[in-house]
């Protein structure tokens, strides 16, 4: 049994009177690819955003890479430098070139020098097959290209864990596969991945485990094959029917 990368115990999150996460228990192993799915409003994005402290939680215990995520901002910073995140809306910096989008975080977060950062950025952009666009600005690229740049930007920091929050939901259908392809490569290289997505093809191809959330709880979890072919829970059955249409 390999080490646990993320360890969550009875995690609760309230937005005012709304109980968003209800006693979540979850372990993510090193090198594992975990897919989280579920109907909208089920708390899956909130859960992923708690993992690098973008959202705070009300009570419970959350450890990432052995570091407790809480109010200590220094510890949060340490975690964030080792955990990458890709968002639904790409969130590239619109006033910087593609290359600079990848260089700047290395300079500022890791204190690398510009030469090293540029070499790293070029490598990652080539790997994501967007190197030809280096000198362009984000709004000159398609959604699929932008999302691959966002992934390259995160990978430049050599993260040990990658978090994906619905990375393909804002993309036109024909661009989804170009992003999923590079994510699959990452999964095969044994990167620890937590991915919120409805792309069941991706889950089937590379996920080690799939969990289904609804109303702030984990309803069911299992390997992808079992989740798709023989779901136990009513909600899972309903959900699988909808996403497989």
């Amino acid at each position, binding site marked *: 049994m390999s080490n646990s990368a993320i360890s969550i115990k009875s995690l609760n999150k309230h937005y005012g009177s709304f109980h968003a996460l209800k006693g979540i228990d979850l372990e993510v192993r090193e090198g594992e690819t975990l897919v989280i799915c579920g109907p909208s409003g089920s708390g899956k994005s909130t859960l992923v955003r708690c993992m690098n402290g973008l959202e705070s939680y009300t009570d419970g215990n959350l450890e990432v890479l052995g570091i407790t995520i809480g109010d200590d901002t220094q510890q949060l910073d340490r975690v964030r430098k080792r955990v990458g995140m890709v*968002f639904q809306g790409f969130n590239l*910096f619109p006033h910087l070139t593609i290359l600079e989008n990848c260089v700047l*975080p290395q300079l500022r977060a890791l204190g690398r020098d510009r030469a090293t950062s540029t070499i790293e950025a070029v490598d990652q952009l080539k790997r994501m097959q967007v190197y030809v666009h280096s000198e362009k600005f984000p709004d000159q690229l398609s959604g699929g290209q932008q999302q691959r740049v966002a992934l390259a930007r995160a990978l430049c920091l050599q993260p040990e864990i990658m978090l994906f929050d619905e990375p393909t939901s804002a993309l036109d259908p024909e661009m989804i596969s170009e992003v999923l392809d590079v994510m699959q490569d990452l999964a095969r290289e044994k990167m620890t991945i937590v991915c919120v997505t409805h792309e069941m093809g991706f889950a089937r191809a590379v996920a080690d485990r799939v969990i289904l959330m609804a109303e702030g709880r984990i309803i069911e979890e299992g390997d992808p094959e079992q989740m798709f072919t023989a779901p136990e829970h009513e909600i899972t059955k309903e959900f699988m029917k909808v996403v497989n249409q």
Partner: protein
Amino acid sequence: MAASLTAPAAATGPVVWLRKHFFSTWYDAVFSILFSMLIAWMVNKLLGWAVFDAIWRVENRELCTHDAGACWAVIEDRGRLILFGLYPYEEQWRSTLACLAVIVTMVLSCLPKFWSIRRLPILWIAGFGIFVLLMRGGFAGMPLVRSEQWGGLSLTIFIFAAVFVIGMPLAVIFALARRSTLPVIAKVSGLFIDLVRSLPLLTLLFAAAVVVPLLVPEAIQGTKLGRVVVAFALFFAVYQAEIIRAGLQSTSQGQEEAAVALGMPYWSLVVDILLPQAFRNTLPSTINQAVITFKETSVVTIIGFFEVMASGNAAIGTGEWGNQYIEVYVFLAFIYFIFVFGLSRYGAWLEKRMRLGHV
């Protein structure tokens, strides 16, 4: 068959253009003729007054009568008073050089090449240092000239540039403070902005010039000009702070989240990500504020500084040239126009450049 279908030759040329835009119907034609006659009459009058019937040289000043054209002789005779105010006549070359130093500093700070945390402060310290040393003198054989005697165009430009350079960083600090997650800082900053904003500029400058010396020990009072510039900068800063805050609010939440998730520190989030976008989003309002500030520098007259507007008034206040106030005001308007128009064109150039993606 298709080969025989060629487009009809497009009718072009000035005659066609005129007909299309000014003579397409009979009433268009009537209005066009009437208005072009009116414009021609006005242009003729203006040129006659300003050029053909104008008196240019001081030796012809007795020709300046009510019936003659513009009497530009007043500018020849009083131009130096307008441009230099009360600054000693023999030393006015210093004022000229000092003024040039500030103008060069302003122009250079407008160039993207100089936009770095290291270069801008060096440039400003050098530019303003040269200005103050030259204007004040008191070394290397240059007699001391106190800031009470500074005046004219160089004073106007100095006040504007100093207000901008001091006010802009303050504005950034106020804007960030007002958005702070610490409620005390946000409240205090908000209260301060609203307080200063609800005072008239004149009151603030008057307090800086007259009231502060009564309350503050002499050692830290500074010069009257220094106090007035700081008060003016505060006034500018609270308005500009709200403009910057609007710009910060218009950047998406995702920008901040991305920078935080990448582990970038707060200062970098502000300096590298949020502020460039905020300035970019609010460039038209910022240029607007700069233009208003340039024109408002004339208010310092009231607390006894002879900036270019006051010097202009002095030029016609002696009776000798009392009838030539129109010429002097036209000349002043021309000076203001050059600066404000230059500022506006610079803003337009920046906007165009940003559309191409640069900061």
